[in-house]
């Protein structure tokens, strides 16, 4: 073990150190990291998908009524209010998750939540998505961080935010009851394709257009209930819309499911989650995220082997990552994303309520949550975040936020970087003309920008 290990553990596997964590380094870094791989909960979320859907349906219904009759200003005003209050709550939930990652005692789980939320990226591209997008990670991803990837995959695929985002809610099998009655309706292969390409096997891993169609057909009928009275609000399997056939995916036959059961596609998803190619794809992405843009082959193989052996048990795979010697190179190879940059500054400086608030700050720095605009999520390549205008943005923001920090710069530096702090940086921040300038320099120092 090198003397740098504890700070590598803080920065590479977490969101930087904080005063409490500096004490914890006593127990041994790997033990400390592994001990965090337990349940990570977002307590008392400010908004649930059920609440979001209830309000979306209410809003749509009211809007139709108001649009049809040129109603009083009052009705228009109420409608605006409904919309505004729903968007405010969804915004508060996003802020809540970010705040928790600043204060958590399980920083590695906060990072994993961010990783998988980006892996299963949804964007706030319209009113529905802006309302519901932040509930996906809270309800479908966080509860499975200490469990199996297959459970996470099924939960995510069933979640209304994903069904909306990748347009599965109206995907109808051509030979289903509804399909036969209404010839203009049909299948939408967007979700099926992205599951294979992005969420599981990975692009160019040997699946075909037929596989895309088989999975998409299996997913017909996976929709969102609650528009009609009496329906459960949330995921609903609509048997009338389900393609009533056996499907063959990657050469495996999946029999027609029993009535009113989404089991056919669930079986497909479980097999996909435990496929060797998924193991490779996800291990590579995880190693790339935590360690290096070009992760060592040996590391990826070790993780992938533990994925196969544990059937995609996430803590087991993470343990393989943590225990691998290649994960502990002193050389920091990743350039922090704006999100990691902001959270690690707040954490080290013990800032919670910053101005502008966290979501707004990330928007300015180019990484507002749920705004990647692509189901592939934000880039995880250092190069994509290290550009001239993004550096200037960070300098300007660092100088701005430095004005809100109460702790002395050298204290923040010791907390944040420990013995990773370079002699030159320490000297230069001590010589700065003001506390504010000193902190801005610390935040922009090479060892703070990389992890």
């Amino acid at each position: 073990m090198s003397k740098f290990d504890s700070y590598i553990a803080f920065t590479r596997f977490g969101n930087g150190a904080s005063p409490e964590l500096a004490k914890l380094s006593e127990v041994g870094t790997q033990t400390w990291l592994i001990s965090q791989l337990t349940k990570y909960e977002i307590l008392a979320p400010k908004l649930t998908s059920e609440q979001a859907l209830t309000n979306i349906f209410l809003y749509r219904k009211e809007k139709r009524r108001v649009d049809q009759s040129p109603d009083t200003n009052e009705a228009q005003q109420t409608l605006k209010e409904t919309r505004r209050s729903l968007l405010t709550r969804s915004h508060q939930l996003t802020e809540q998750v970010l705040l928790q990652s600043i204060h958590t005692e399980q920083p590695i789980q906060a990072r994993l939540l961010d990783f998988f939320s980006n892996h299963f990226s949804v964007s706030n591209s319209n009113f529905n998505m802006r309302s519901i997008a932040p509930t996906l990670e809270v309800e479908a991803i966080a509860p499975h961080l200490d469990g199996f990837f297959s459970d996470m995959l099924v939960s995510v695929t069933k979640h209304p935010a994903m069904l909306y985002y990748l347009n599965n809610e109206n995907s109808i099998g051509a030979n289903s009851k509804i399909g036969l009655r209404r010839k203009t309706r049909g299948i939408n292969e967007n979700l099926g394709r992205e599951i294979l390409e992005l969420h599981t096997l990975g692009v160019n891993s040997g699946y075909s257009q037929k596989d895309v169609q088989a999975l998409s057909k299996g997913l017909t009928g996976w929709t969102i209930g609650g528009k009609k009275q009496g329906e459960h609000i949330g995921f609903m399997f609509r048997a009338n819309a389900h393609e009533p056939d056996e499907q063959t995916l990657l050469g495996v036959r999946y029999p027609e499911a029993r009535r009113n059961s989404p089991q056919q596609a669930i079986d497909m998803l479980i097999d996909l989650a435990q496929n060797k190619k998924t193991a490779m794809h996800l291990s590579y992405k995880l190693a790339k995220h935590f360690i290096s843009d070009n992760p060592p082959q040996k590391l990826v193989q070790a993780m992938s082997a533990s994925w196969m052996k544990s059937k995609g048990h996430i803590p087991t795979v993470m343990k393989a990552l943590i225990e691998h010697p290649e994960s502990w190179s002193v050389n920091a190879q990743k350039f922090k994303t704006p999100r990691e940059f902001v959270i690690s500054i707040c954490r080290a400086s013990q800032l919670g309520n910053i101005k502008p608030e966290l979501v707004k700050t990330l928007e300015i720095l180019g990484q507002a949550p749920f705004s990647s605009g692509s189901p592939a999520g934000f880039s995880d390549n250092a190069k994509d975040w290290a550009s001239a205008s993004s550096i200037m943005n960070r300098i300007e923001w660092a100088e701005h936020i430095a004005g809100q920090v109460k702790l002395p710069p050298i204290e923040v530096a010791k907390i944040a970087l420990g013995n990773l702090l370079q002699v030159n940086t320490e000297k230069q921040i001590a010589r700065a003309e003001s506390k504010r300038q000193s902190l801005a320099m610390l935040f922009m120092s090479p060892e703070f920008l990389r992890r």
Partner: protein
Amino acid sequence: MTIQHKTQRREFIQTAMAGCVLLSVPLSTTFASASNTKPSSNQPSNNGNKKVVWIMLRGAMDSLHAVIPSFDKNYFAYRTSSINSIKDELLPLDDGYALHPAFKHLHQLYRKKQYSAVIAVATNYRERSHFEAQDHMESGLDEIDHENGWLARAIQHYQGQSLAISRTIPIALRSIKGDTANTWYPSSFKPADEDLMDRLAGLYEKDDELSGLLQQAVEQRDNPNMMSEGKNRPKFTLLANRCGEILSNDPNIKCAMLELGGWDTHNNQAGRLQRQFSLLDDGIKSLQEGLGKTWDDTLVLVTTEFGRTVALNGTSGTDHGTASCMFMLGGNMKQGGEVLGKWPGLAVDDLFEKRDLMPTSDVRTWIAKGLQTHWGLSRQQSSAIFPDLELS
């Protein structure tokens, strides 16, 4: 040459209407050339201050809803429900093609011979992943190279600098030769203190990556043409307008890349595309306003990563397809005001894998020829930009 091309094109459109496909290649006379003298192949050429703007439409634009082949009976069989509401407002082009009614400005440009559409184009990529296809489009190579973009290769042959309207450097502007592109994007905070900038330079002394970035960031900040506007979530029209102003005020910047997303219309596409087309149309107008007189020296290329399915899917949208269209615009096009490319037909057997519009020419060939004429590049230089193409 020009006349022959025109004849060829008319012939193929007629034959295409009869369900046949002819061979045709884009010709180098599409754009006005500043000079007739061919530069020697190894020297960078510089015929003055000619600008190129590339607008990348991310998400795969449905060309069949943009440039409508109103002569093709099959089209209406596939698209009745999405075309009905705009059928009577289509903006006519030549040879039976028409523009979606949202493209009001483009249609005016077409009449002034400052805009041409090219139909049924694609790269050589035949899978249907957005992200791979975009990387392909940006690198311009048969085998994707994430550090080697076509616009970066192109600018090496026409001395000058490049600009990305973005916070980060897109693949298209990454160069293996190590030249870095300028990036510009509106900022939100007050400019950093001068002394802090100097001190950071000191702090980065031993860090090549960071000192390079810092130096570039300072140069950009001090460039009066790149002063930011203080908007947080800029609209495409604003970005396009600033892009035009920077290009027109800064003689060193010769090319720029703009991006516009939102084209992945898997559901209810009629309304969504109406908004997207208007945004693009307004954006091009703003770009032109920003360019001012420089518009006469500018070539604008608009492309997307692939097309969409010919048939509508079950949710009134379209899924990932193959061929799409591209747009070429400029204040000084000899052959503006045309619909170029070959129409492959829409009968089931004419489609790619019986579902997508069949590509009939490589989008890169049109880009190459456009650059060749506009920047006065030699054929060898074009081949160096797109080494996988057989260029005439």
